[in-house]
């Protein structure tokens, strides 16, 4: 399986990094690291543009992240109308990567603080779709 069931609306399915989805279904959010130069990537890359190698390995994003910024989206684009309001957020992780995802719906808006600790976790969506989201650490 590729990215066809990823997120609220997916726009393309095929990618060499489609294993990301298999691992997401197994409960893990993964990033890639180049075995040659050690460069780490999120979004995951199947190839390393720095040393032109395609010898990359997966690693799990396990650290606590810190919230960089967020916004409460009240107006969803076509395909996302029924999701709104939803909270988009960016968080920075110790593995040297940053991730964009939604904040879990159990976090109240008034409790959100820039710099707060978060984890990134797989999230089941309606209609057998899957994504990842930030939860309070």
């Amino acid at each position, binding site marked *: 399986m590729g990215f066809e069931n990823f997120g609220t*609306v997916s726009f393309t399915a095929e990618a060499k990094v489609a294993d990301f989805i298999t691992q997401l279904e197994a409960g893990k959010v993964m990033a890639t690291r180049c075995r040659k130069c050690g460069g780490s990537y999120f979004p995951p890359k199947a190839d390393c543009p720095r040393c032109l190698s395609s010898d990359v390995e997966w690693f799990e994003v396990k650290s606590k992240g810190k919230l960089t910024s967020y916004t409460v989206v009240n107006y969803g*684009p076509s395909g996302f109308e029924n999701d709104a309001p939803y909270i988009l957020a960016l968080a920075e992780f110790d593995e040297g990567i940053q991730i964009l995802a939604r904040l879990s719906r159990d976090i109240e808006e008034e409790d959100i603080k820039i710099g707060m600790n978060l984890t990134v976790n797989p999230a089941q969506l309606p209609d057998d779709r899957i994504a990842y989201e930030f939860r309070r650490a």
Partner: protein
Amino acid sequence: MEDVAVIGVGQSVFTRSCGESIRELCFDAYREALEGLDITGNDIDASIICSAPEYDKQRSPSGLISEYLELTPKPTFYVETVCSSSSTGLRVAWSLIKAGLHKVVAVIGFQKMSELSSRDAAERMGRGGDIIWESPFGITMPAGYAMYARAHMAKYGTTEEQLAKVRVKNSHYGATNPKANYRKELSLEAILNSEMITSPLKKFDCCANADGSSCIILASGDVAKRVTKVPIWIAGLGAATDTMTMAGRESLTGLRCAQEAARQAYKMAGIKPQDVDVAEVHDCFTVSEILAYEDLGFAKPGEGAGLIEDEETYVDGKIPVNVDGGLLSKGHPIGATGGSQIRTIVRQLRGEATEAQVNGAEIGLVHNIGGVGQYGNVTILRR
């Protein structure tokens, strides 16, 4: 090598719904750009057509527009960097002329957004991000800029009221711009009380989708001196990028693509930020204008809001910005916007900006951004 000048500028009226085809829309800007010039369409050696794809059914619009304007058999091609497409077109036109391949090049930008619903347009803009990794979360252009706004507020204490003051200014100038879509003055209260779109950005913090076109005609120095009384010289060009993903951004308190493009443009023009007499910046949202003040060096990082508080970006201020109403008043027909900004600065430098003229303006700057800071173009013009 010879210099390159802007010899003609034009734009259509920007409206929510133009009721015309894209070729007719482009004609409006083309006609205005040729007005008063001692050349005709036969003298245009090439045309560069700029827009963001997916808003109209027409594929390969360059050929269509070239035919309508009777520019065949001259070469034409398409350039795209989303909202900064026509500034990228200008950059390409400059290099074609500088290389000696052509003497006169027309850069035509357009967008007809009214054929899509507002939600469908938002979906197209969302796909201007990374469609595998970020669009499936429901990212939009306003949401991306809202995250910049939130980060700027958290780090520097910038307030929603200060953001709103940008709109107060731009609505003041937009009210007298006959080409603007939104020609009403807005009060601080009306802006602050408008509906929340994507926090902290409210309805009146956002520019509107629009239909519109722009046309910029560039020429080599020898031709420019012959065909126009007031050539406006291209003194500096800068272009840069940042990541397509939000996840790749190193900082959310400024646009790296704009900072880098500005550095290049200032260096090429041999000037400093304080030498700029009048500027057009990409105020797709109120926060974008405050980021631009800082990214362009008009204010230090974190001090952009002070410029609008002190009304230094009004016509009589230290550095007048968007005194044509900006994108916030004019509306933002994506591919046409950069050309409209160039037109405003050219009119300022010619002393023709009757609605809000900056007295004695000699050096002008245009800051035009594509996407949520993915593509940055800075152009410096000199009388």
